[in-house]
C-alpha cells in the first residue's frame, strides 16, 4: 500500500470513529502529561539542587582527619595535614577527571568590615574565613580576578603613600611595602542567597545579588589580617588589607571569600609558616558525570584523601528514588491507557469485520490491514503524546506562576521548578506512540488474520 493511500485510510478512520478514538487517546495523553510533568519537575529539582546547591559533578577532597587527640592539644602546636602538589598532579591523571583545582585555606585569623556602597551601612564579621584558588580556573567567567602584585605599585610605608583605591601591602615586620590594588574576591551564590534571604531581611538591609552581578566596580571591604574574635595569630602582626568582590562563582568557598591563590600563599607564609603556604588544604575535582564520582572517591582514598561533603550524592539518590516512583505511577497510567486503546481497537476491528473482508477482496494484504490499524494507533499516540506534553508544559507554567506568587522567598528559589529539554518532548511522543502501538498490536494482528471469505459470506 502506498503512503498516500494509507494516509487517506487513517484520516478516514479518524473522522469516522472520532469519539472512541479521542477517548482512547485521552488516557494516553493523561499518562504522558503526568510522566512529563514529573520528569520535568525532577530535572528542575536536580538542576537547582545539584547544579547550584550541591554540585554532583564535583567533589571536594581533603586529607583524612588524623585524630589530633590529647597529644597535639598538650603540645599546643597542631599542624593540619595538607595536600602536596604531587598529589594534585596524580588526581589530574585519574580517568574521568576533567578539572582539578586546589584550594589554600586562610591559615590566619581575620575579620572583615565593609559593604557601605551597596548596603548603605557598614556591616562586618568578627570571624572571616576564606581560601585561595588559581585564577586560571575562573578565567573567562570573571574579569579582574588575579594577584594584584603581578603589577605592583610604588613603594610605600602606609596607605597615605598610595593613590585612589590602592592600599599599602606591607607584610609584618617588613620596613616597606608596595602599593596594591584591592585584592579581588569571589563569593559563592550560596553566600549571596543566604545573605539576601536570611541575613538581609533580618537586619532590614537590601538584597545584594543583582547589585553584585550588575556593578562592575564591585563591593569593597577591609580585611583585618592576624586577628579575630577567636584569637591572634602566633606569628606576624595585625594589619589591614583591601578586598573587592569581583564576582559570584561556583568555584568560591560556600561561606567566606575566595582570593587569588598567590595572595593567600603570601599571607599564610607570613602568619603560619612555609608548610601552610605550599600544602593545599583541599582540592575540588570536577568529573565528567555523576557516574565517575565513585571511581574518583576510591582512587582518592589511596592518596589519603576523603570527600569533604557527601550531601550531593545523598540528594542525587533521593531525587532519583522519588523520580523513579513518580515515573512508575505515570507508567501505570500509561499501561492502563494502552489497555484502553486495546479495547477500543478490539471493538473497532469487530465492528469492521465485513469491511476488512471487503478490503481483502479488493486486494489488501494482511500486512496492509495491520499497517492501516497500526498507523492509526501511531497517529493517535503521537497526537496524544504531543497533547499530553503540552498539558504538562502548561501545568508547569501554572505551577511556577503559583509558586512565584504564593510561596515565600527562600534561598535558591528558582524562577522555574521545571526543566523541559528537547528530548523530553521526543520521549513523550515516543512513549505515547509505543504504548498506543502496544495496545493496538493484538487487535491489528487479529484484523490482519480476519478470514475474508467468512467476513463476506456470513451475515448480511
Amino acid at each position: 500500500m502506498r503512503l498516500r493511500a494509507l494516509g487517506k485510510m487513517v484520516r478516514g478512520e479518524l473522522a469516522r470513529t472520532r469519539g472512541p478514538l479521542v477517548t482512547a487517546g485521552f488516557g494516553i495523553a493523561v499518562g504522558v502529561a503526568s510522566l512529563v510533568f514529573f520528569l520535568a519537575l525532577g530535572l528542575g529539582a536536580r538542576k537547582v539542587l545539584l547544579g547550584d546547591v550541591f554540585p554532583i559533578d564535583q567533589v571536594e577532597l581533603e586529607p583524612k582527619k588524623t585524630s589530633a587527640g590529647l597529644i597535639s592539644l598538650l603540645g599546643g602546636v597542631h599542624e593540619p595535614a595538607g595536600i602536596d602538589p604531587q598529589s594534585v598532579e596524580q588526581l589530574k591523571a585519574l580517568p574521568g577527571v576533567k578539572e582539578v583545582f586546589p584550594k589554600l585555606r586562610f591559615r590566619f585569623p581575620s575579620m572583615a568590615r565593609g559593604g557601605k556602597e551597596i548596603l548603605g551601612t557598614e556591616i562586618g564579621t568578627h570571624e572571616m574565613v576564606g581560601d585561595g584558588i588559581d585564577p586560571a580556573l575562573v578565567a573567562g567567567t570573571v574579569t579582574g580576578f588575579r594577584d594584584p602584585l603581578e603589577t605592583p605599585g610604588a613603594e610605600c610605608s602606609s596607605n597615605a603613600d598610595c593613590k585612589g583605591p590602592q592600599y599599602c601591602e606591607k607584610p609584618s615586620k617588613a620596613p616597606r611595602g608596595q602599593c596594591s590594588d584591592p585584592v579581588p574576591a569571589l563569593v559563592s551564590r550560596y553566600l549571596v542567597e543566604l545573605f539576601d534571604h536570611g541575613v538581609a531581611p533580618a537586619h532590614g538591609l537590601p538584597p545584594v545579588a543583582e547589585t553584585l552581578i550588575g556593578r562592575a566596580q564591585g563591593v569593597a571591604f577591609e580585611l583585618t589580617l592576624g586577628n579575630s574574635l577567636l584569637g591572634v595569630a602566633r606569628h606576624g602582626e595585625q594589619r589591614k588589607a583591601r578586598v573587592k568582590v569581583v564576582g559570584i562563582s561556583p568555584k568560591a568557598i560556600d561561606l567566606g571569600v575566595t582570593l587569588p591563590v598567590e595572595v593567600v600563599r603570601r599571607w599564610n607564609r607570613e602568619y603560619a609558616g612555609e608548610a601552610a603556604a605550599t600544602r593545599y588544604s583541599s582540592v575540588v575535582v570536577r568529573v565528567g558525570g555523576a557516574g565517575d564520582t565513585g571511581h574518583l572517591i576510591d582512587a582518592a582514598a589511596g592518596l589519603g584523601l576523603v570527600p569533604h561533603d557527601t550531601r550531593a550524592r545523598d540528594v542525587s539518590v533521593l531525587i532519583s528514588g522519588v523520580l523513579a516512583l513518580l515515573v512508575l505511577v505515570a507508567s501505570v497510567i500509561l499501561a492502563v491507557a494502552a489497555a484502553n486503546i486495546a479495547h477500543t481497537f478490539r471493538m473497532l476491528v469487530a465492528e469492521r469485520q465485513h469491511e476488512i473482508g471487503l478490503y481483502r477482496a479488493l486486494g489488501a494484504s494482511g500486512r496492509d490491514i495491520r499497517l492501516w490499524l497500526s498507523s492509526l494507533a501511531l497517529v493517535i499516540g503521537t497526537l496524544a503524546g504531543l497533547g499530553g506534553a503540552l498539558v504538562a508544559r502548561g501545568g508547569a507554567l501554572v505551577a511556577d506562576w503559583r509558586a512565584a506568587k504564593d510561596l515565600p522567598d527562600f534561598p535558591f528559589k528558582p524562577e522555574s521548578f521545571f526543566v523541559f529539554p528537547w528530548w523530553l518532548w521526543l520521549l513523550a511522543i515516543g512513549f505515547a506512540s509505543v504504548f498506543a502501538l502496544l495496545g493496538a498490536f493484538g487487535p491489528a494482528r487479529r484484523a490482519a488474520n480476519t478470514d475474508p471469505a467468512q467476513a463476506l459470506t456470513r451475515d448480511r
Partner: protein
Amino acid sequence: MSVIVARGLTRTFGTGEAARRAVDDVSLSVEAGEVVLIFGPSGCGKSTLLALIGGLDRAFSGSLSLFGQEVAQLSDAALSRLRGEKIGFVFQAFHLLGHLSVIDNVMAPALFSSHDRHEPEVRARASQMLERVGLADRASSSPAELSGGQRQRVAIARALLHQPSLLLCDEPTGNLDRKTGEQIIELFAELHAELGTTIVIVTHEERISRLADRTLDMVDGKLAIGGAA
C-alpha cells in the same frame, strides 16, 4: 489459456465428528473468456467454492491454480496483489462502504494497488465505469440513497475498476427484484461482449442460465455437469 484449474479441491469446516466438507473434491477448469454458471440450492457450498477460486480462502486441500500460478505457493502479499489486479468480486449483499460516496467506493480498490499512483487518473477511470453502468449522475451520492439495483451497479463498477480478467459473482441478483435482476444480467452480458472478461457466477436462480457458455450443478459440495445449458 486456463484461468482457473482446480483438482480435487476440498474445503472442510470443523474438526473430528463435526467436520463437514462444504466443497468436496471439486475439479474444474475455466478458460479465458468463458462465462460459467454454477447452480445449486442454498447451503450447497457455492460461496465457499467462490471464495476458494477468488483466492480469499487458502485453507483448502487439493490443488488450485489461478492464471497459471499455484495458489498454495503464493505469499499472502502476492495472492492479494493477484486479487487486486486480476479478479473482481460482486456479492449478493453488494458490500459497499457506507461512509464513502459512490465514486469513492468505485475507487476503493486503488487504495491497495501499487499502480494507481495518480489519483485524477483513477477518478477519471472510476467515472467512466460509473457511466458504463448508467450511474454517472450519482457519483457524489451516498450508497444509502441508492436502490438495490443501483447499489449492485456501483459494486460492478468497482469490480471493473482494474479491468480484471476474472469476474466472480456470488448471487448477484439474490437481493434484487425480478426486473432489476434482469437488468443486471443484461449488464453482465453487455460487459462480457465488450470486454471479453471471464465470468463465474454462482446462483440458485434459474433465470441467469441463458447468459452462460456452460452450466454446472452443485449439490452438497460436489460439482456435476449441468443439464440446463
